[in-house]
């Protein structure tokens, strides 16, 4: 087996010493793999994805990216984060920067690319996610779906090894969900390594190599999407899926 691009070994996390948020997590993500994480709210799926670039520190276990142990702080951590793309539920575009500046900021300030170079590749990326004509606007002037696509472009501009998506469509109006999912499907098709927290079953079925089901901070079940959605092995997963479908 090829060595995993991202791997979590015996990861435990507590909030405030009492709330056990992640319980003994072991997870490997291979290069080019698309992993979808699902589970009820409060199951720890967002926490899990946020530990991978240490937006949430862990107390036990180890996380490796491309074989390297995740640094705890400082420049080393910043450098590693540059290799891990992150897309948030609430987009978090830099409110005081234009769309273009949002995408060029990282390449210029972190990767030390020239302005012309950063701009050229940013324009290409904005084209790819379909918001090229909005480049001069500010985030607040765009719809939620457009903002989220810009956020994806901003992450891609760093040429990350792995992309993390933390419920990227949960804050969107229904008519905008598809335009964001389409971009994500294209990325998956292009062989991007992705970890996606989402309830979008359609995305999981057509793009995911693996579905990871979490409950109460632990990974309860993993399987390929077809098997998982058709006949989940655990009672908890079946229970969760039945609620998801009836809604």
């Amino acid at each position, binding site marked *: 087996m090829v060595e995993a691009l991202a791997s979590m070994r015996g990861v435990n996390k507590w909030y405030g010493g009492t709330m056990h948020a992640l319980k003994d997590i072991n997870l490997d993500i291979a290069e080019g793999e698309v992993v979808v994480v699902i589970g009820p709210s409060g199951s720890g799926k967002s926490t899990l994805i946020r530990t991978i670039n240490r*937006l949430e520190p862990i107390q036990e276990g180890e996380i490796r990216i491309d074989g390297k142990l995740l640094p705890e702080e400082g420049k080393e951590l*910043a450098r590693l984060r540059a290799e891990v793309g992150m897309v*948030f539920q609430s987009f978090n575009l*830099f*409110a005081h920067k234009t769309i273009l500046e949002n995408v060029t900021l*990282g390449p210029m*300030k972190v990767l030390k690319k020239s302005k012309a170079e950063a701009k050229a590749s940013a324009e290409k990326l904005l084209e790819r996610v379909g918001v090229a004509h909005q480049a001069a606007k*500010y985030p607040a002037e765009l719809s939620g779906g457009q903002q989220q696509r810009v956020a994806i472009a901003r992450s891609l501009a760093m040429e990350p090894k792995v992309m993390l998506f933390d419920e990227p469509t949960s804050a969107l109006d229904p008519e905008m969900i598809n335009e964001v999912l389409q971009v994500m499907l294209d990325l998956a098709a292009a062989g991007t390594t992705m970890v996606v927290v989402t309830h979008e079953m359609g995305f999981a079925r057509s793009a995911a190599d693996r579905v990871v089901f979490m409950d109460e901070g632990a990974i309860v079940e993993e399987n390929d999407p077809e098997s998982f959605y058709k006949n989940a092995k655990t009672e908890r997963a079946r229970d969760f899926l039945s609620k998801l479908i009836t809604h």
Partner: protein
Amino acid sequence: MSWSEFLDKYQGPLIDAAWTTLRLAFVSFGIALVVGIIVVSFRVSPIPPLVRVATWFVAFFRNTPLLVVFFLALFGLGDLGLVYDFFPTAAVALGLYTGAYMAEVLRSGINAVPQGQAEAGRSIGLGFIQLMRLIVIPQAVRTVIGPIGNLFVANFKNTAVASTISVLELTGQSQRMFNDAAAGVWRVLIVITAIYLLFLFPAGYVFRWLDARFSIKR
């Protein structure tokens, strides 16, 4: 006393006094900016004694009358072996006083930057300094332009209190003229009021314009 006699006698002193007010307003506000930045960086630092010092500093200056601050600066600093002229003493006292308010205004600006903005910055690999310089400070500053404008106006008005420690600025000059019965109380009041408004209305206008121009739409 006719208007021309009034002007003959008081034009010079009024211009000097207006210049003193202006200088004191800008010097003390500059000090307030520096003090505010230092105090707020103590206040948001992870080092407990610095946080405590900043909290005390702000509480002291916000809850003590400016007049007492001036007198303490005059006598207290003297007793500490730091003796300065009246003008620098006034500028420092006023700068510290406004600086405490400045620290609070800046803190509210920093607190207004959503956590998500910082997380987004970190996740594209910005280090602490870059995050501050490129994301947090520019956003914080834009949200506090209005309040800083209010502070500028308040600080400008508070220069009047410097007259109590012998700085001959506009209000001190007005007191001298009030005591000259021939000058006419109403005339003095109107002239001094007009000079203050001449400075303060444009200042208010400038800050409103800056606020409209630079504030962040969310």
